[in-house]
C-alpha cells in the first residue's frame, strides 16, 4: 500500500556510495515491523520528532508534545488513548484515510513544511504509518 510515490530523490549517488557500503547489512525483502502505535511512537515518532528542541516537553513547538506513548497518541488523533482522558482540539490523523491525514501530508511535505525538517523519514516509515492509519489508527 502506498498513498503517494516517493519524490525528490536528491543528487546523492556518487557521494553516498561509501555510506551505502556502511549500511550493507542483510535485510529481508518485506517489512515485518508491527504497524501499531506502540512501535511507531517508540521507534519513529519519538526519536524523529520529540527531540528537546522540537515536539517534547522541553520545547513543545506549536504546542505539540509527542514524547510519550499516550500523550503522543492523543495529540496525533485528537482522541484519548485511555478511556476517561480528555481529547485534544488537534487532529492530525483521519482514521482509515491516510491521504487525508495531515500527519502524512506533513511527513511528505505536501502543502506544508516537511517534517521532520532536518532529516525526512524514510519512505518505508511513512508507509508503515499509513498502514496504521488505514487500519483505524488505534491505540495498540
Amino acid at each position, binding site marked *: 500500500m502506498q498513498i503517494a510515490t*516517493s519524490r*525528490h530523490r*536528491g*543528487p546523492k549517488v556518487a*557521494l*553516498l556510495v*561509501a*555510506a*551505502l*557500503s*556502511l*549500511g550493507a*547489512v*542483510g*535485510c*529481508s*525483502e518485506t*517489512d*515485518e*515491523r*508491527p504497524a*501499531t502505535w*506502540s*512501535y511507531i511512537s*517508540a*521507534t*519513529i515518532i*519519538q*526519536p524523529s520528532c*520529540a*527531540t*528537546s*528542541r*522540537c515536539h*517534547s*516537553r*522541553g*520545547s*513543545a*513547538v*506549536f*504546542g505539540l508534545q509527542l514524547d*510519550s*506513548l*499516550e500523550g503522543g497518541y492523543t495529540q496525533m488523533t485528537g482522541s484519548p488513548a485511555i478511556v476517561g482522558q480528555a481529547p485534544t482540539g488537534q487532529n492530525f490523523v483521519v482514521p482509515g484515510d491516510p491521504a487525508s491525514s495531515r500527519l502524512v501530508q506533513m511527513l*511528505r*511535505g*505536501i*502543502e*506544508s*513544511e*516537511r517534517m521532520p*525538517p*532536518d*532529516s*525526512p523519514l*524514510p*519512505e*518505508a*516509515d511513512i508507509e508503515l504509518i499509513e498502514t496504521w492509519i488505514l487500519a483505524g489508527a488505534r491505540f495498540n
Partner: protein
Amino acid sequence: MRAAAMLRGLVLVAAFGAGLALAPRAASAYPQFQLSTGAQRCNQCHIAPAGGTLISGYGREEAADTISRGGDGGFLHGAWTPPDWLQLGGDLRGAFLVNDNGRTFGDDSSPAVHAFPMQADLYTHFKMGSQLSATIVLGYRGTARGQQAADVDPVGSREHYLMWRPKPQGPYVRAGRFLLPYGLRLAEHPSVVRRWGGQNVNEEPYALSGGVVKNEYEWHLSVHTADPVRCTGLGCADFGAAAYYERRMGEKFILGAQARIALYDEVVRGQDMTMTGGLVAKYWAEGAKLLFMAQADYGRKSIPMADYTNQEVLGYLGATWFPVKGIMITGAAETFIEDVGPPGVDRTAGSLEIQYFPKAHFELIGYGRVEADAWLYMTQLHYYL
C-alpha cells in the same frame, strides 16, 4: 594589536547578541585535533576529562599556535588573565542555512532558508583547592524553527558538574549534568552517531562518572538519569549506564570500545530498554596530513507492547585533511539503519565540511550534507571567548 583584535571580537559578539535570539548547541569539541596536533588526550586541550566545552591554557596556546593562523588564544585575547582558581570562556555561533527536504507549497518547492543562532554559551570553572572543581555552562535557549511553549525558560545550563581530579592524568570522579563519554563525540550534532546515538542537542543527562585518563589509554564509566524537565530524546533514559575505553597505540593510531544500556519507562516511552555497543578508531597519516575517524555501533531496542525488538546500526567513516595551517577539510559518510530487518529504513548521508581558522578565537565553517531525500548547506561563524 591586542586592542584591535579584542575590538573585532567585541563587535562580533555584539552583532550576535543584537541580531539573534540565541540557542545552545551541544559539545563543541573537535575530535579531529586528537593525534593531528600531537595531542594524545582530549583533556590536554579541554578542562573536562573527555573533552568538550571549556578549553584549558594549553588548549588556548594550541588554538593560536598550531590550529589558527596566529593571534592570541588567551581569554579576551590575552587582555586579562583570570586568577588561577578561575577559568572562563564561551562559544558563540551564528548560522545561515539552506535546507531542501522536498516540501511543496503549490508550485513552490524552493529550499527553506534560515538565519539563526546556533550557540551562546558561557563557561565558568572554579577550582576549590587542588583536587576539587566546579564547572557551569550557561546558555540562552531558543529555537531555529517554530514557536516554543510560553512556559519554556529561555536560559538553560546543559552542563554543570562537580569534579574530583588530583591531576590531569590519573583518576577522576565527576557528578552533575554533562555529555557522556561515548564514541567519537563529534561537534556536528546532525551526524548520525550523535543524532540517533543518544547524544543529540540537549540530551546531556545527570550522571555520576569516573575513570582514568592517561597518555596511553583512558576509560570512563558512567551511570545516569534524565533531567525530568529539559532532557528529552534518546539520550535521556530514566536510568542508564555507559562505558568507554580508548587505547592509544603510539602517536598514530587509536582504538576504542564502548557499550551503553538505557532503561525507559515502558508506559511512557513504549520501549523498555536499549542496549548499544561498538568500536571507535582513529588513524593519523602524518605524511598526507590526513586523519581517519570511524565509529560503528549496533543496538537492540525492545518494545514490549508491540512484542518486537529493533536492531539498529550506526556507522560513521570520515577523513580530515589539513592542507595548510588554519584549514581543515572533512569528508564523511554515515548511516543509521533504524532496523536491520526491513529494507529502506536507513538514513544514509554524505557530508563535506571546510573549517577556516584565520586567527585565534575565530572560525568560519562551510558545511554541506546530502541525505536520500534532503540536502542542506550551512555557513557558520564561530567566536570563542
